[in-house]
């Protein structure tokens, strides 16, 4: 059965998906990374014994986020291989009770849709204090006081503490979700498209707040998004993920100023530019491959405009490019750790 949903982060020091704000990250012992995800593979099995198709950029990223949170149900999801090392500990190997101590306290997550992330029949204050009570083992009254402090942090009037989620607007609801995620002052915050469901002006408010809180609480953040504008404003490092693989990773400057992978270049071209007038947008032809039936070679090869024969049969390896931590997985570049950027001979004349 060709049932593999690969979520591999082969980049030597890749820390996160799509975009990662790691600047403010505090590390346990200086040299170690706060979080290391290595060769992680997750499979999904369905009734018919075939792997569940996870379609789309966002979905495969969400899966990784859920894997880090230890939230993939088994079955249908199976950790096939790889390690998620958090503060030197492999999260794949710890017990559920240990995980409970980490989840919500040290690693927490902001979900994409604030409508479904909140419990509709529970006042918001209880939803925030629940986390605090569970992790800090304090009385309900103290937890409530702390929760009210959190509400103030996300600028929601404390008078509204006992209201239910439906009484709040979308932006306020997302801020409540942020308050829950930050209630225990986590070391790592995973934000899964936190602003996709919001309007631009509210999005600006939420991003501003997340940036502020990241600085104040000294929290590391993994931002999952398909909006390059959001990346430009909040992140320090970026990883471009396609069909469950990191195709390119580097600092924000590397990726925005010197995108190397044809997919990255295509994505930038597809964004309507406010400063330029173009008749038609650059368009990446085709659609994401079916994760149940991934191409044998480079996953992007069927849609790539500069694909050669080799791309369809052989997986490219990681090449290091000039610049800090700039890596790309493409046959167009050959290089090793010592070598600077070398464009493969076959592509040179282009």
């Amino acid at each position: 059965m060709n049932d593999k949903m690969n979520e591999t982060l082969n980049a030597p020091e890749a820390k996160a998906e799509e975009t990662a704000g790691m600047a403010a990250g505090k590390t346990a012992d200086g040299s170690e990374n706060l979080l290391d995800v290595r060769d992680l593979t997750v499979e999904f099995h369905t009734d018919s014994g075939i792997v569940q198709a996870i379609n789309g950029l966002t979905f495969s990223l969400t899966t990784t986020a859920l894997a880090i949170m230890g939230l993939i149900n088994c079955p249908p999801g199976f950790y096939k291989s790889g390690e998620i090392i958090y503060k030197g500990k492999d999260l794949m190997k710890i017990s559920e009770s240990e995980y409970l101590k980490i989840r919500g306290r040290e690693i927490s997550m902001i979900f994409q849709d604030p409508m479904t992330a909140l419990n509709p029949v529970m006042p918001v204050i209880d939803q925030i204090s629940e986390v605090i009570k569970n992790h800090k083992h304090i009385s309900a009254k103290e937890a409530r006081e702390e929760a009210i402090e959190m509400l103030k942090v996300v600028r929601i009037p404390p008078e509204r503490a006992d209201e239910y989620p439906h009484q709040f607007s979308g932006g306020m609801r997302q801020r409540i979700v942020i308050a829950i995620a930050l209630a225990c002052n986590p070391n790592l915050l995973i934000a899964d498209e936190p602003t996709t469901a919001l309007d631009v002006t509210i999005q600006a408010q939420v991003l501003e707040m997340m940036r502020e809180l990241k600085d104040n609480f000294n929290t590391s953040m993994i931002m999952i998004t398909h909006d390059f504008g959001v990346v430009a404003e909040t992140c320090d490092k970026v990883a471009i993920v396609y069909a469950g693989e990191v195709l390119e990773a580097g600092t924000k400057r590397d990726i925005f100023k010197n995108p190397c992978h044809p997919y990255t270049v295509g994505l930038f071209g597809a964004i309507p530019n406010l400063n330029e007038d173009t008749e038609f947008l650059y368009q990446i032809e085709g659609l994401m491959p079916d994760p149940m039936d991934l191409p044998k070679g480079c996953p992007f090869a069927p849609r790539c405009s500069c694909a050669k024969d080799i791309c369809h049969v052989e997986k490219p390896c990681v090449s290091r490019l000039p610049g800090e931590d700039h890596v790309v997985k493409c046959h167009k570049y050959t290089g090793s750790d010592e070598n600077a950027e070398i464009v493969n001979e076959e592509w040179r004349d282009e």
Partner: protein
Amino acid sequence: MSEHPYLEVRHLKKYFMTPNGPLHAVDDVNFTLEKGRTIGLVGESGCGKSTLGHMIARLLDATDGEILLEGDDILKYKGRKLKDLRRRIQIIFQDPFSSLNPRKTVYNTIAEPIIIQKMYKSKKEIEDRVFEIMELVGLAERYVNVYPHELDGGRRQRVGIARALALNPELIVCDEPVSALDVSIQAQILNLLKRLQQQFGYTYIFITHDLSVVKHFAQDVLVMYLGQLVEQAPVKELFAHPRHPYTQGLLSAIPSTDIDNVKERIILKGEITSPINPPDECRFAARCEYVSDACRQKAPQLQLLGEDHLVSCFSPLD
């Protein structure tokens, strides 16, 4: 050509009755649209832009006002005439996941308007038309008998577009057609709509909250806030010289992908005023940083500044 503009909206109002009083979803909106052009309608969610679009597509009845299509008030259409109007005005919905009937195949979805309007009678002709439309929107023939759940977002949106194009309409209301899609798919759909416009001369009303999409796609822009138009201008003019404080805030809120020029952000404070029983004052007053006493006393009217730039503000920005 006639002296009437192609589409003219006059004093259009839509109030929804709620237990707490009337909700002013669309409140006295006026604009005109020439044939073959694209007008962008932007604003936050809940500002009434979709309600306006649905009224133009005659999916909602108006509380008051007129929608003149080539001089004829389509709000008065009933029965036979209304059915004929459906051929001329079609709508593409925002969410390709909920706007398709899950129990209809792609073929049945696209063929349904053709059958209802009796555009073609014979089975062969209907079939030919469905395949023609599918090719036009870039859907492979093999998808003809699949159900929506088997398709991904981009293809589903193509089915929605195909259904809207099946009757060869003149005016298409695009209600956030790309909001639910990824950037690479978004570019495909935008290019498709633009190509179709060049080919068939469609007129679009393009509703979105993404200003960069409007900049790329529309010729004129209407900015709505709480059911009212606050600014109207040609797209270049609006982006170069926003005159209303809300438009300015909206423009500055767009996350920029230019990492070298970090722009000064104007963050709009506060939440939107409730559209239920709004007070008789400028509706943006609660969030406006330039608010003055005049704004609190009565609502400003749209006034012409320059050649074709309309702004509803007592002290428009330079």
